[in-house]
């Protein structure tokens, strides 16, 4: 609580510092050329010197304070009655924290109430100490910044360097997060592979994590049916829909459509790409799946399932069309006009030109687009959750219900989880496989696109 207030106070102090420094700089300013930096920059320089060191102190203190508080509470006589095992003790501590913040809250463990008071006292004490430290840092920073306000001081250079640092930090953020994700995936997947052999996982054909107990654990974590379901739905059925339709729409839009038609159709296609996947999901589950089931019945299938690979794959294909279309559109548009002119000038018709010159020339770009589309399709979750089913089945029958990697990850990580059971941990192994596959697809696709661009530059 105190620390939140301190944070606001630091920002307020920064604001005050900004005005103070700018005011002082204005007094020194005596016309054009009299100072290296304009007063605003001195303001920003001062504000940065107040806020940045204080923020660092604040972050550091927020990180170490809970440990200090816990230490004090544990040393308190009231804590002597706490049970020794860590899990139970942590639960009581958590309740005590709630009580310390709000005395009216309910608590299951009576011990929580006894330690709530020392906990509150320790929190307040350390909060105040932290506030004092942060305040000193802020004032020291501010004072240092203020003394540097001189006509020849290059405040602008310093501020611009700080902004540069900020921009760099922003761009690193996504990368660092990715590293974090990879690290956690690797760690948890490693835990999983301690229990289950990677070979059994990657080559086994039986998937029923619920039955996995005791010695036959390897036999129940064969992920091949999931990989098959993912590939069948995302890379086969969806692409059978998306590639021809996307390609044809791109050919129409770039080669045949009049300017007016293109102006209408292209944005509509792009809107299609903006529909939330969950909406596609219930379209698949509620509209397409029953039609497919009835169709299966008319084909004479016994008990066709409502959830089917076909329903999920078809809708996913439709979802991917704008993606394929816009990649193919870019690839076709990147072929120089001189190519088609050359062909037309030889007496080739427009369609001959498209088939024999434009498409071959644009092929690498189109292939790359398709690979990106596949990597999107196999990572797609909502549609398969709603329409593909949960049955891990190795089947080529499109009317059968099937499951995918993403669906199983959702299954394992929703509801109650135990992070020491291979069942939950299998989600991370699956995630790791998915991550590697999509990463490889993306890298290849980007390389192809890059090479293709070079060819025409």
């Amino acid at each position, binding site marked *: 609580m105190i620390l939140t207030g301190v944070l606001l106070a630091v920002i307020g102090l920064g604001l005050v510092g900004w005005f103070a420094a700018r005011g002082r700089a204005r007094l020194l300013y005596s016309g054009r050329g009299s100072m290296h930096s304009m007063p605003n920059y001195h303001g920003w320089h001062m504000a940065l010197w107040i806020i940045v060191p204080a923020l660092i102190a604040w972050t550091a203190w927020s990180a170490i304070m809970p440990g200090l508080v816990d230490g004090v509470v544990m040393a308190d006589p009231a804590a002597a009655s706490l049970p020794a095992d860590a899990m139970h003790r942590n639960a009581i501590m958590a309740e005590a924290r709630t009580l310390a913040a709000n005395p009216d809250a309910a608590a299951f463990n009576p011990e929580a109430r006894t330690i709530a008071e020392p906990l509150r006292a320790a929190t307040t004490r350390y909060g105040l100490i932290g506030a004092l430290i942060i305040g000193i840092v802020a004032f020291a920073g501010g004072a240092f910044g203020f003394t540097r306000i001189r006509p020849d001081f290059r405040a602008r250079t310093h501020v611009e360097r700080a902004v540069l640092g900020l921009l760099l930090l922003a761009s690193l953020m996504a990368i660092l997060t990715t590293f974090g994700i990879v690290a956690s995936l690797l760690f948890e997947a490693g835990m999983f592979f301690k229990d289950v052999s990677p070979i059994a996982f990657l080559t086994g054909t039986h998937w029923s994590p619920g039955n996995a107990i005791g010695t036959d654990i390897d036999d129940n974590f064969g992920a091949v049916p999931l990989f098959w379901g993912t590939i069948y739905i995302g890379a086969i059925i969806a692409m059978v829909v998306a590639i021809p339709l996307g390609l044809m729409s791109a050919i129409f839009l770039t080669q045949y459509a009049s*300017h007016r038609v293109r102006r209408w159709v292209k944005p509509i296609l792009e809107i299609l790409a903006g529909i939330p996947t969950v909406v596609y999901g219930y379209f698949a589950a509620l509209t397409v799946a029953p039609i497919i089931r009835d169709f299966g019945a008319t084909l004479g299938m016994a008990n066709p399932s409502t959830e089917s690979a076909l329903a999920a794959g078809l809708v996913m294909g439709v979802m991917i069309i704008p993606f394929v279309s816009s990649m193919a559109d870019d690839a076709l548009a990147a072929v*120089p006009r*001189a*190519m*088609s*002119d*050359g*062909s*037309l*000038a*030889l*007496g*080739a*018709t427009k369609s*001959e030109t498209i088939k*024999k*010159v434009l498409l*071959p*020339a644009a092929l690498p770009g189109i292939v790359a687009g398709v690979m990106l589309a596949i990597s999107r399709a196999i990572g797609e979750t909502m549609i398969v959750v709603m329409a593909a089913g949960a049955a891990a089945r190795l089947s080529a029958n499109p009317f059968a219900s099937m499951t995918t990697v993403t669906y199983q990850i959702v299954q394992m990580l929703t509801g109650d989880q135990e992070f020491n059971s291979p069942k939950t941990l299998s989600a991370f192994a699956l995630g790791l496989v998915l991550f590697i596959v999509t990463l490889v697809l993306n890298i290849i696709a980007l390389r192809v696109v890059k090479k293709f661009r070079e*060819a025409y530059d």
Partner: protein
Amino acid sequence: MNETKLTARNVDVFYGPKKAIDNVSIDIDNGIVTAFIGPSGCGKSTFLRSLNRMNDTIADARVTGEILLDGEDIYAASMDPVALRARVGMVFQKPNPFPKTIYENIAYGPRIHGLAENKADMDAVVESALTKAGLWEEVKDRLTDAGTALSGGQQQRLCIARAIAVSPEVILMDEPCSALDPIATAKIEELIDELKENYAIVIVTHSMQQAARVSQRTAFFHLGNLVEYGETSDIFTNPREEKTKDYITGRYG
């Protein structure tokens, strides 16, 4: 002496509302090289592109007046622009070989028009076109290399060979040497000189020296008008019009 191959009568070309060519009438003869010269934006390329209806590919371009190929109106409804372009070939400013092999670049046109019955026929067509374009000796051992792997001058001769391969009657060249170095340019000019025996050749050029070197007739365009048209030697030594004289003596352009 030479019969007239192409005749333009009162031709206007519009890009949208803008008139790019104004009332041009000209006769282009077989067996000689006709050069179109003039400052940038004078409409010489536009006029050239209207001779094989390449302007059709530009959405708001419009041609009025009459252009006759062997007495036949090329803008008549009965004229198929695709068939016309097989008779009136074109070579562009920048070499634009297809991203295919050298062989396939040449075979492309004949295949579309069904000019070869079998592989042996096609080989003969390819060899003959490359030979006429003076490229055969240089590429005969690497016909399966990419056309884009050749040097700029070779690429342009490949494009000329590609145009020749469909046996056109007229070859239009739109500044064919502007992207080439002097040595490659000299080779192309030599080639044009040889080719004129069998085709009517029209060349648009920025270089007056080139027009003087390769052409027998020269047309001078200015601001969409055909200012003067006549024997190349007359145009360069004894122009009738003041504007032509100013241009060829380098007073503007």
